[in-house]
Each structure stands twice: as C-alpha cells, then as structure tokens.
C-alpha cells in the first residue's frame, strides 16, 4: 500500500494585500496553507524583508549593526537610498524614533517632512513606524498620512488606544495600517474587528502580533502567530485572515547577548557574527510561524534569510 502524507484540510485563505505604489509595489499574503507547506497548498507571494532606517542617528546600536551604514546614519534619505541601491532592499521601514516624547520629542511636522523626503527618494514600499505613544503617534502619523498621500505607506503601530484617528486618516489617504496588539490572538482579532467597523478595507490591514527575539520569549510570539494562522486557515476566522508583519531587528540587536563585545566575554564568540546570527535565526523562526513581512537590520542577516526563503519556496 502506498504511503499518503497526511494533509490538513484548509478552509480559509490569507487575504492578499498590496504594499506601496508604482512598479515596485509588492503583494503579500494569499496563502492557502501553513507557512511553506507547499505540499498542502499555495504560497503565491514569498515573505518580504524591509530594511530598517532610523530618522535620527541610532544611539545604542552595536558596532556590527552600524558598520554597514557608515556615513549615512545621520541622513535618513541617504540611508534609505543605500539600503535600496547597495543592499537591494525590497522595502524600507523608517523608524520614527526621534518623535519619542521621552527622547528627542521631534514635532509632527518636522518628522513628517523627513518621511516625505524619504518617500520621494525611493520607490520601494515604505513602512513608517511610530513610538507607540498614542497621542504622539496620532499626531505624527496623521500628518505623515496627509503629506504622503498616494504613496500607499504601511503605517503603525495602530493600537486600540489610537486606532480611530489614525485609521480614519489611513482610509482617507489609502495607506495600510499595522494593527498592533500585545501577543494575544483575541486582542488581535478584536482590533481587526474595530478597524473593520471603522471602515478600514481588508486590503489595508496587516497584523503586528508583537514579537521578541530568541531568548526573550520568542516562543510566545511563535505560539500566537501559529494560532492566528490556525484560526485563519483551518477555522475560517475571517477577522484573522490578514498578513503578519514582524518588527524583529530592534528586538534582537538590543539584547545583552548581542551587545557584549568579543573581548568582554570571549566564550560567546565573535560579536559581529553573533549579532547577525541572532537576527537571522529570530527572523527565520518568525517566518516559520507565519510572518509575511520582516523588518530587519543587517545586510548579512537579510542575506541568510533570503537564501532560506528561496530554498523553502522552490519545489
């Protein structure tokens, strides 16, 4: 008797969403099976990687993370261009760290002007990530939304506490919202329902389940993402059938294990290699859990993950 590989009967499909505008717009989602289960269903669009750009010079990055961007970290436009031109970034994520009220507290207008300049300098899809301060993000992202109309940004994090105003602005200017909730499948679904009720079209929602790196609770993020995909694909939970975005770079590069210099603890091995591998491995874990868009930092880590994606998607 021939052996049949047991297969899962899927009843749902992840919605396809288009990111960005113009020739270099990308589509993610559309899967009809668990991640890379190509023997069970389709994965019409491979996961995508966005390269991180800060809107003010990073203060706490380890040497290994700074080194590829020498000379551009004080200029977000040059930095974004370098990501695209030198490292082949298919997307860029501009982290608006300068707007943090507990930090530089840069004003909404000034921050939005920078976003606009970056958006004009590159043609790949652009993610704009705030500081998760509800009042400030509302102010900043609404301004960004207005200034960059037509650019089809992906903006967030949009949380329960600020979804109404940012959501309304995204509807008005046709941007995609990053629906962000703290590692809980029910909260993720609730926010999607609220956004839907507000009138945000399904093609403009991407889920941020909140993630962390290896050693810092990545198994929780994994489990929640896995459950989101199970509900979406096997239990027809329409309000969870959205692509997932993971802001993973900042989580791995801030850990003690990545920051310790080689000479401080030689047992841990080469600091540069350690950081790249921590980022690549964390990203890979999240891909297996269902990530559609990864926000990453180091070109070599990105290279490793791209290679894996390639191998897993060629049948």
């Amino acid at each position: 008797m021939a052996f049949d590989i047991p297969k899962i009967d899927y009843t749902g499909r992840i919605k396809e969403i288009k990111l960005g505008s113009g020739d270099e717009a990308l589509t993610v989602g559309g899967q009809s099976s668990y991640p890379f289960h190509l023997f069970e269903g389709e994965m019409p669009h491979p996961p995508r990687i966005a390269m991180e750009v800060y809107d003010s010079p990073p203060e706490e990055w380890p040497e290994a993370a700074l080194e590829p961007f020498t000379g551009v970290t004080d200029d977000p436009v040059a930095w974004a261009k370098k990501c695209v031109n030198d490292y082949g970034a298919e997307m860029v994520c501009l982290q608006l760290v300068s707007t943090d009220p507990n930090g530089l507290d840069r004003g909404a207008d000034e921050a939005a002007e920078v976003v606009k300049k970056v958006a004009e300098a590159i043609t790949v899809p652009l993610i704009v990530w705030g500081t998760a301060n509800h009042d400030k993000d509302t102010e900043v992202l609404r301004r960004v939304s207005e200034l960059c109309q037509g650019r089809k940004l992906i903006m967030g994090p949009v949380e329960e506490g600020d979804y109404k105003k940012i959501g309304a602005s995204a509807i008005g200017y046709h941007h995609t919202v990053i629906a962000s909730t703290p590692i809980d499948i029910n909260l993720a679904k609730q926010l999607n329902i609220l956004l839907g009720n507000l009138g945000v079209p399904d093609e403009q929602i991407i889920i941020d389940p909140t993630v962390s790196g290896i050693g810092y609770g990545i198994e929780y993020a994994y489990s929640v993402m896995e459950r989101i995909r199970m509900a979406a694909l096997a239990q027809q939970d329409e309000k969870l059938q959205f692509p997932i975005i993971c802001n993973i770079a900042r989580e791995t590069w801030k850990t003690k294990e990545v920051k310790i210099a080689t000479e401080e603890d030689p047992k841990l091995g080469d600091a540069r290699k350690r950081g790249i591998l921590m980022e690549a491995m964390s990203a890979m874990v999240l891909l297996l859990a269902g990530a559609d868009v990864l926000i990453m930092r180091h070109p070599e880590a990105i290279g490793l993950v791209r290679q894996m994606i390639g191998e897993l998607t060629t049948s």
Partner: protein
Amino acid sequence: MTKKSSGKRISVTFQPDDITATAEYKANLLETAIAAGVPINASCGGAGTCGTCKILIEKGRVDSIRTAKVSEEEYARGTRQACQSRILSNLTVQIPAESRLETAVLEREMASGVEAQAALATGWGFKPSVAKDFIELVPPTLKDNTSDLSRLMRGLKKRHGREKISVDFPVVKKLAQVLRDGRWMVTVTTLRDSETGLRLINIEPGDTRTKLYCLAFDIGTTAVRGQLLDLNRGKILAQSLDYNRQRSYGEDVISRIAYSQKPGGLKRLQQAVVATINKIIGELIEQAGVETKDIAHMVVAGNTTMTQLLLGLDPKYLRLAPYVPTINTAPPLTASPLGIEVAEHVHLYTIPSVASYVGGDIVAGVLGTGVYQRKKLTLYIDIGTNGEIVIGNSDWMVTASCSAGPAFEGGGIKHGMIAASGAIEDFNISRQNLEPEVHTIGNSKASGICGAGLINIVAALFSAGVINQKGKFHSHLPTKRIRRGRDGYEYVIAWATETEMGKDIVLTEVDIDNLIRAKAAMYAGCQTLIRSVGTSCPDVERVIVAGTFGSNIDIDKAVTIGLLPDLPRERFIFIGNGSLLGARLTAFSHDLVSEGQRAAGMMPNLELSESSDFMHNYVAALFLPHTHAEEFPSVRVKLNKAEQEIGI
C-alpha cells in the same frame, strides 16, 4: 491615642441618626462610628482608598489629611474621610446619603424570584429536622418510682419505636421541674441528626406544639438575609435583611481575611456578623409576632469565608495555596455560644461547602433548585462578587468559582450601589436623540446604579451604537450627555437636578471596563467549565441564574453584553437568592440535610486559576458581546437590524 491625653473624653454626635458616642482624644472617627452602631460605609476597610466613608464635619475639629478622594472644594466645605480623621474636640458629624448603609428598601429584592423558586423546588418531603412531640406520662408512685428521665424516655419510645434517642444534658438539668410544672404533660423538642440519630434538645411544660419556628439565613459578603419559618405549616412568616456589618472592615472576602489577621480582627468580624444576625432576628420576631424562645432551629448558608468567620474559625488558609478550608461540614453545634440571641438549645446547621471558594451558598442553591435531582443538563450561575458556577445533572456535577469583582453589586463603579431604593435598575435610550429613559427601584430620585442597572445601561448604549465593542464611547455623537470627565469619556445618565445627591450620575469608560471584566470572568468561567466536561454551550438544557444584583435580570440584555450564553430564552430561569432558598428548604426537610452533604460530595471543583483555557477565554470575552461573534448569533442579528434602522 497618646498617653498624655488618654482619659480625656470627647462627645461625638452623628446625624441624621442622632447617635452620640464618647471617644478619646485623637480616636479614629470611622472606628468610633462603627463602635457606636452608626450605619456608615467603608468599602476598603478604613484604608483610605475608597472614599465611601466621606462625612461632613458640622461642628468641632478633626485632624485629617486630604487625599485624592476629597476635592479641594469638598474639603473647604468640611468634607472628610472618616477613616482618615482623628477626633480633636467635641464633634457633630453629618453622614451624607451616599455614605450611609441604607437598608429599608432592600426588601424589594427579597420578594423577587419567589414564584420562580417555588416552581423549581420538588422532590423533597416536608419533614423538618426539628420536631415537637406532646407526651402525657403516668406520674410516679412508690410502686413505679423509676427516674424522671427513664419515665420520659419510656413515653418517647412509644412514639418513636426502636429509634435510638440521645439526651442533651441541659434538658436533664431542668427535667424534674418541667415535668412537675406540666403535671406530667410536656412537649419535647427533638433534633434529627444524621450522625447521632434523634437527640432530645428541649422540654417544655404543657402543649407548645403549635409554636415551632426556625430561622433560615443567607450570610452574604455584602448583605445578610434572613427568614423566619413556621415549621408546622412550612411557611415563611417574615423576612428581613441588612448589610453585613463586616462590610466596614472591607468589601470582599480577601480584605476580610486580611482584616481577620489583625490583632482582635477575627473576633471583631465574628461579632459584626452576629450583630447583624441578631438585628435581623429582632426584626423577624417583631414582624411575625412570635417569641424568641419558640425558635427551635437555625439553618445558615454562606460562602466558605463567611461560614468560617461566623463560627470564629481562622480563615487565613482559605486564601493560601493549596486553599484548604478548616471544615466542609461543621459538626453539630448550638447557636447561643456564638453570641446569637436564641435559646441555648437551638442548633445551628451550616450548609456544607465544597472548597475554599465554593461555599455552602452554592451548595444551597444547587440543593434548592434541584440541579442534582434532574436528568436535564443544567448550568447554575450565581452572579456576584464571587461568581459561582455549577454544571451537571442527577448523575454528575462540576463546580467552579471565578472572581468577577464587585461590579455586579455596585462596587468599583463610580456611581454604583446595591439594589436599594433609588438605584437605577432599568434603562433605555432613544436611538434618535440619544436621550435616556431611567427607572429606579421604588421610583424615587436616582441615587446610583445597581448591578442590574449597569447591565441594562451598557447593553442599551452598545445596541444604540453609543459605545464600541471595547466599551469605549463614540465621542463624536451629537449629544451633550457624552463628555470628557476625570476618567476619560462618560455618559450622563441623570443630571444633577434629577438625582438624590444633586450631582450628575454618570457612567464612565472605567465603569464599563469594570463591568466588561466582570462579565468576561463569568462567561469565561462558564465556558471553561462547560468545555472541561466535554460538552458545549448549546447542549445546556437549562440555565438557572441566581444573584442579588437587582429585583430581576433582563436575560436578553445580559446576553447582549455577553454575560450569559446566547441560548433560547425559555431555557433561562431567574431565581433571585439561591442560597437563602436552599437554606429554607433544608430547614423544611431533613432529607435535604443528607442530600446537601451528598450534593457537596458529588461536586468536584475545577480550579479556574489552574486552567490555561480560562485566561484565553477571558480575554476573548473582553469584548461586546464577544470576540467570537458567532457565539452570539441573536445579538448579531439584533445589531444588524439596529444598524440598518439608524443607518450607521
């Protein structure tokens, strides 16, 4: 109290009760009020955090710090927190309406659900544990000079055949005189005890059989409810209730247990509940026109903590893992040594409990509603601060308890109150102009919102699209009733001119959040329990809802907010106070004493805090009506219809 000034007596008069107490210099004002029997609120037990004991100093001086609970304006007018005030001089203190423990109109709630209760209780024989027998004895002669007791027992044996009868010693002490006073015609009172058989507990001269009464009590964390029963006719002669005086030492069982650990705390709590019981007994006696001496028995149901505190048993270990009560079934005991003002032969029977957080109150409810007797799969839900749930039928039962918080009894709600006169109980809202229609208990001026009111208000605001599924206001709506308050957005339910205290009654987003948490805990508890026994909500054939949050519950609205499962409405029965019902029936039927023990014994307890599903279900239930709307199909249909009507 400083040594220097001890001995200096100060007089404090509390208005409007006109009670005067003496106190020492720098004595705590709240403690002085409680000691003097002044009805005053203190939800947090005097910690200064709740602001419910606000009073007005009319004359005299106190040393009091202003906390965030007292506004500057109030402070200037003389408002202080009693618990934060030390007495410096002779005082006249006014206790405003909102700080009083009001009782008079709580009675309305007592009457509720009685008819539904009668419909439920079946299958028990009327046979009280306590009975009276009239016995005529042959007087002794020189030829027949056997002892008084042997003579009495000979007479009793004729009546009861071979049944073993034991005698309580106090009966023997008065035996000789009573026999002769009654000219050898006496009435004996016997108590049927499952362990020891028949016990002779009292003897009276003459025939007193017509006077045989019993007390049934529900000792609640918030309120104590009592009934006087006629054991000859199986009737309720009188009923009354009062706030549990322990409330002045903390609002929930945890704060009571904490208080019991203070020096003298356990004794004070025991005395407080006994004082409440005695006050109620006094009222019952007066209402019914009977004499205390004719009360022959007492049956009490309460949660495990309340039962242990009444018996003076240290409740410390109830709240420490692995959460073990001192007793589940109390051994036979008499009531008077506890301080309860009844004759010394009166035995106190406490309905057995199952676990630390599943008490005699829930056993009483199961007993009273016959959940354990019927084939139908029944879900019994006691909605309260400590939500209790039972699922099962005559073959099996499982129970769980979940901490819902005090929202259903008005706790943690800005203008929350117990279901008493002036409590807003029913509420509707016009979809056109978003104006409310408010009904209060007793049709008096509104003074707050009770549990039932809270459910109805949130259901109405949600159905009308005033709040979203997270309980947050749509602030852009064209009404001046939605405004920004101290705790975020709020909805004005009644303007100052329409209320008892002359202040706006509002419902805040924080209040709604507290209700959503409470309902989520109840629903998730039900769901977790139902799934743990391998069944699902639609299989539940009957839902019995108990609780004292109002005179009734609008099942439809409770389903709308996702408190109760969305089942055909005819499957629901509201019974009001299930605990008191069980206590009363147990008083009427000795069969139920052993049945109660059997029921308690067949109810394993599912510890929800140990269940990984509970937390998941709880978060899913933190949404109106629920994250998984498909579990509430009727609500979805209703909301869709409403949306079409108002075009949102």
